[in-house]
């Protein structure tokens, strides 16, 4: 029985390490490029989708924090009861608000600015990435005839998506500017 449990533990340890090893090998950049080649446009489009979703999340958090701070300012003080909704959204801040209102204010103002800066940097980097896309990418190796229209359709699809992302970035920028103004007034 003892031997069995020891063997199982050893097997689990080896299996765990092997899983990490396998996962690491699969994520090696060179091997990934070799095993799962994607065209440049597709990869940028995928990355832009991921980044846009993060920016959206960050903007939502910033918006909520600015609203939270405005609410705190309007009600002028810590005597407000702890709210369940706010506790879910900002557990730490809401918990310390009645105890240390000044610390609460400083922490949240700082976090809001940090959040603003994070979004600003993300927008800047993503915009450069999208603006830098080469509209005439280098020619791909010759392929069989029927595959060509499918390929160009995929490329034009990706370009369309990228255009959509660029439009989204404009919206995000104006949203960020508005929130930055509100933050400056606080």
């Amino acid at each position: 029985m003892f031997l069995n449990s020891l063997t199982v533990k050893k097997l689990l340890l080896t299996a765990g390490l092997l899983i990490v090893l396998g996962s690491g090998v699969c994520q090696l950049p060179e091997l990934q490029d070799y095993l799962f080649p994607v065209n440049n446009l597709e990869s940028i489009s995928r990355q832009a989708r991921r980044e846009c979703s993060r920016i959206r999340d960050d903007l939502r958090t910033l918006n909520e924090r600015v609203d939270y701070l405005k609410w705190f300012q309007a009600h002028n003080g810590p005597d407000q009861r702890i709210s369940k909704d706010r506790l879910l959204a900002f557990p730490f801040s809401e918990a310390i608000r009645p105890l240390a209102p000044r610390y609460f204010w400083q922490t949240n103002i700082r976090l809001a600015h940090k959040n603003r800066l994070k979004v600003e940097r993300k927008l800047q980097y993503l915009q450069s990435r999208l603006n830098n896309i080469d509209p005439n990418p280098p020619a791909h190796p010759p392929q069989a005839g029927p595959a060509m229209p499918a390929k160009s359709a995929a490329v034009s699809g990706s370009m369309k998506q990228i255009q959509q992302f660029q439009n989204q970035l404009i919206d995000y920028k104006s949203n960020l500017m508005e929130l930055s103004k509100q933050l400056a007034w606080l």
Partner: protein
Amino acid sequence: MRVDRLFSPIMIILALAAFLLLFGLDNRPFWQDEAETAGLAKNVLTYGVPRAYDGLNIISQERGSEFDGNFLWRWSPWLQIYVAAAAFRLGGLTTFAGRLPFALAGLACIFLVYQLVRRNLGDRTWALCAAALLTCSVPFLLYARQCRYYSLGAFFTLMSLYAFKEDWQSRFRPALLLCLSIGFLFYTNYLLFFSYVMPTLLVGLWLYPGEFPLKRTTIITIATLIIIVPGLFLFRIQEQSHIINLAVIPNNLENYFRDLVQYMIPLPIAAYLLWRWRRFFWTRAGIPGESGEKFILFLGLIILGNIIVLSLAPQCEHRYLVHLYPLCAIILGWVILKTWRYHKISGVLLAFLLFVTNWLYLVPMDWLQISNRPNQTNRQMLTYPNLPLRLFLTELFSPYADVNRNFIRFFQTQARPGDLILTTYGDLPLQFYTPFQVIGGLQGKISPSRPPDWVVSRYEIRYNRNYQLQDAEKFIREKLSLTADYQAIILPWEDEPFGNRPDPYYHRFVPATKPLAQIVIYKKLTRRQHVP
């Protein structure tokens, strides 16, 4: 020397470490922080003391609050400045000379790790394993190859531990070594001193209560205080303490612990150690009896205490953890051996993962979605699953001209004597390598007597600690008309944020395949060039 001693495993490790630390040491020029140390060291050669002003340029990254009315540097401790100055005196004002003593200190750290474990804990295999792990730690190598205090901090930390494990209670030399290493740690960086000494003392008293004789401990404490007291006043620590901000503590703690498991001790190993020592946190009965494991617990608690103290400081940077890398190597070496003795195959797998890859650090963090990958990172950096040594060797053998090198070359060939350069960042490398007056950066308020001849508006916008635009950025936006009075020169190189910054979140081993933003330099138009 006998042949078997010459080719002993530790000599082979040290030879490999010497190659990794010294080869291509001057491939890239100093980046901003290194250039601060190098610039001050250059001034030491002229004035004998670190002056922030040399009659042409001002060295500052904190809006001028680092020096007094006589431009005497009173911000960071002077040891690193004098070490760099001595190297410049011996080797000339070169990048290689500036970095050499710090790289040698890094090499000494690797030997000390070996010596500490072998001599005091008596396990040569563990000692070799720990020394080899530190040699293969790419973040540690990057930091040790900088003209900055990082490797000195690690060296004095190790030296104090070495002295502590010697018979300092009754012998004079180890006691003196303990006192001096702690004192020098203060003059290396007082943040490291405060974050290391307090937790070490408390943990030492808790784990080794019988090893602190009152009289000797008091003498050493007083002697250390005598060494550091002048520095407490010289470096204006009291004035700097107002920048401690309680608001940042939770965030700092989160970031430091994330850094720890992302680069220093993998999350599964940290979790295993916590589980193994779980009884210790409730009762003293849980303290391991075996001296090796007890020492590992000692190191683990020092790291924990360090992070807690560090989180009080406003700036949260990975560089403040560098002195803990050797401690982590000792812990990981012990874990590898423990695993090997438990199950050979697992031991080999674990050793492979820790020596060759960063997968055990990043893959579990990816599964939990807690890995930290700022948006400027790419797949060829340490923030992604990689073979770190391969990336590092690629950089050594295929060096590329980074952003600072390109700026230096441009101004060395294009600017004329007496020209004034304004830049939003990277002013200090330009000051060190070129003969021109360079203003801007993080120097603070700008009031040039004439419009600058050259303006560099870096792609990454810089903010101060209060998240307000830096003065140089403001000056360019509010006082200059770049479109009307300047000609934009777009260069084909990438405007990367820092250059040779060793921080694993920022260090680029290979250049980006397609630059995100190109370098733009504005040249002042002469009257004749102005278009009405």
